[in-house]
């Protein structure tokens, strides 16, 4: 801020100093420089000169008059007063940080109504504040030369049931490879509590998800919760379209070593099972120019391997290093105006099973399919358009009708038994960082090919942030 003040002062000083020169120069700026002297006289259309244009006070060109010494002294005094006021305000009432800091927040207020179903519903009738999240992000070191920046993030969120404040993101990241040249591959390492790079649903932030309620598998397979570990993420063979500042690598890869115990505050203050898990993800993107119809097409595969302690109902440990696995495959086409995502996930989890009154180790396999079809129109999905400078406040609009099919089979050994949720929804994005979501969910519980019960719910949610 102090630097800005000094710059403003210098700028104003320059302005004053050169007003003299300009005033004099204006009078002598002549047609004699007109190279071709295209003297064919233009028509004397009165609307073709400054004098005839009705100007408002703000856009009126400066009058060509000399500035007196008194004017300059007066301006200097005014700048001094302004500087003192600014400094005082800066010292007293401005939030300051020792490093670059970006403060953000994301909140959800919703109303849900369920009705008509024959089974239990997960939607509670009435109003609810379903998410309160604050985030702090910035860089601890900025490398102008190569972009090998050291970045950090800390965010806090509320537990959805008790409203306890919990750490969400707590990480430090470093760009190992330069990040300023879009024609070269990037490589970054991130350490701390962060998202697990598995599939699409688990890695997409809430403000970008079309549905109010996430896909079933993400929570059932514990893929959407943060974990603590170290992630190496990079890409290879980038295609770059300078005309649109659009960069898409052919290959993206992620490799993570993590506790596998979930985030801090969920009862896991340490790596309770004393095992480290591994996670890998690879994505192939269509390496095309921005205006190519295949822009946004990607295919991904994810794999998670971990170990956990399995106990029986009495709490006795059966196995300290029982294997658990996750497999995922996804395809996405995210373009405008139409796009879709499809994701398959499979989980193998160890469980305790009683055989002949004795607890033994067994496993349960679950799988899931999630398909979303959407249609976007409006401005908020156009990055460069939203990031513009305007005098007025910013009210870009976007509309996104969508349909989602979401199936979760909790135990694949129970054939033809699964839960299906069909969602018809409409998202209305407005005021830059706000969206209104309307979702109609119809949930079917299928047991042995027949519907055992169904629920339906209508959810309205405002999601807003800064």
């Amino acid at each position: 801020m102090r630097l800005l003040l000094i710059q403003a002062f210098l700028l104003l000083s320059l302005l004053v100093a050169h007003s003299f020169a300009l005033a004099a120069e204006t009078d002598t700026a002549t047609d004699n420089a007109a190279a071709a002297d295209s003297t064919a006289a233009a028509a004397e259309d009165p609307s073709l000169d400054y004098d005839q244009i009705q100007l408002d006070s703000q856009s009126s060109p400066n009058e060509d008059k000399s500035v007196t010494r008194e004017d300059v002294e007066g301006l200097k005094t005014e700048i001094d007063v302004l500087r003192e006021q600014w400094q005082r305000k800066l010292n007293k009432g401005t939030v300051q940080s020792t490093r670059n800091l970006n403060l953000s927040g994301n909140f959800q207020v919703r109303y849900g109504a369920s009705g008509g179903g024959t089974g239990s519903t997960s939607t509670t009738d009435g109003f609810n504040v379903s998410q309160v999240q604050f985030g702090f992000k910035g860089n601890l070191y900025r490398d102008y030369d190569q972009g090998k920046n050291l970045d950090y993030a800390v965010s806090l969120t509320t537990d959805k049931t008790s409203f306890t404040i919990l750490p969400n993101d707590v990480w430090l990241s470093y760009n190992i490879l330069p990040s300023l040249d879009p024609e070269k591959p990037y490589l970054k390492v991130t350490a701390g509590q962060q998202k697990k790079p598995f599939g699409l649903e688990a890695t997409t932030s809430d403000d970008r998800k079309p549905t109010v309620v996430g896909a079933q598998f993400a929570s059932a397979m514990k893929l959407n919760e943060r974990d603590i570990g170290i992630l190496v993420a990079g890409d290879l063979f980038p295609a770059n379209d300078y005309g649109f500042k659009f960069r898409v690598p052919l290959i993206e890869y992620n490799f993570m070593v993590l506790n596998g115990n979930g985030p801090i505050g969920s009862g896991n203050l340490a790596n309770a099972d004393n095992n480290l898990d591994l996670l890998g993800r690879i994505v192939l993107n269509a390496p095309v120019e921005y205006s190519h119809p295949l822009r946004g097409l990607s295919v991904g595969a994810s794999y998670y391997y971990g170990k956990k302690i399995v106990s029986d109902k009495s709490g006795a440990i059966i196995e300290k290093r029982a294997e658990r696995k996750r497999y995922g495959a996804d395809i996405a086409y995210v373009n405008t105006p139409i796009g879709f995502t499809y994701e398959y996930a499979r989980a193998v989890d160890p469980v305790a099973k009683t055989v002949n009154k004795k607890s033994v180790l067994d496993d349960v396999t679950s799988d899931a399919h999630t398909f979303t079809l959407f249609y976007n129109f409006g401005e908020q999905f156009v990055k460069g358009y939203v990031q513009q400078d305007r005098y007025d406040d910013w009210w870009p609009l976007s509309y996104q009708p969508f349909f989602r099919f979401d199936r979760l089979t909790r135990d694949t050994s129970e054939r033809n038994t699964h839960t299906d949720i069909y969602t018809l929804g409409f998202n209305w994005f407005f005021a830059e960082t706000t969206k209104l979501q309307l979702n109609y969910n119809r949930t079917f519980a299928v047991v042995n090919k027949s519907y055992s019960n169904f629920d339906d719910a209508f959810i309205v949610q405002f999601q807003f942030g800064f």
Partner: protein
Amino acid sequence: MKKVFGVLLIIGIFTTLMTGISRAEDKPQVIRIGCTGSNRPIPGNILGIVNQLGLLEQEFKKDGIQIEWNVFKGAGPASNEALANGTVDFVTFGDFPSIMGKAGGLKHKAIAINDVRRSSYIIIQPDSKIKSVADLRGKKVGIGKGGFGQLFFSRLLALHGVNPKDVREVNLQGGDSTAAFLAKEVEAIVTGSDGIDLRNRGLGKILVSTKNSPEFLKATAALVVTEQFAKKYPEVTYRFVKTFIRGAKIASEEKNRGKTFALWGKSGNSLQSLKENYDGIPLKLVTNPVFDDFTIDHYKQSVKFLKDNNIIRKAYDVDQWIDRSYQDRALKELKLEKFWPASDVEGKPHPR
């Protein structure tokens, strides 16, 4: 009942919006303009004058057509993105991004020149021992890739026989470029007339100014309209161009030089840098909205250069891209056919 209400609400909102959007009209409700700039009046060119004088607002007020100004911090690439997504109707941008977008398949027509013979600068550190463009070999040069500077710098290096791979180009956009230069993280930066301010403050030296260089090194910017808009609203497009040319006429008058610079100065350029940048250059040469042999050839040679250097994958026909019909009609109606000089392919002006 609730579920029926929910479904009906979702379908109703969607249907209403789609109906409203697809309604055909003989005139638009709003004309959406995209240009480059920061949170100030838009930069020093013809559109900047048109914007600050409110000429378009006056022209379309009687029709109830609103003028929406979209000023993109992301410059040319953001303009291309907006064009690709149908969020703007008219755009002004530099030669490099307009060629990149057009070569990438955007459907628009060039209908006027917004800025021609704009000078570019290479600024080096005050204590730098760099004496020539050839000395930039092995040096770190900050450049906003995707912007006007990329074409200029590429052609400059080619002119001096320097292989671009021998220069360590650092992709720095906007304020980052100046910040990196002041922090001495880069040894040179490619910039516009802002470079003059750096020199005047003793913070840099001018290594290259294209002011007195071959004309082809100077930047040119065009006004384009989407093919969809022009086809749907040809008369509105014509009136837009006519108004634009009125602004150009005002900006081109030497007697208005001081007032024009004062308006341009509001975009953030110091008056001193504007004065120096255009010193000795007739305004009619830099605010000439009319396509002539020089500007047409500039685009043709630039497309060829970018294709030959594999910066664009496919070339396009510049003659097909330029649509002079609107400006020819406007010039005739305003009796300005001979007001601006025409220039030959070398940039040498001559009376029309």
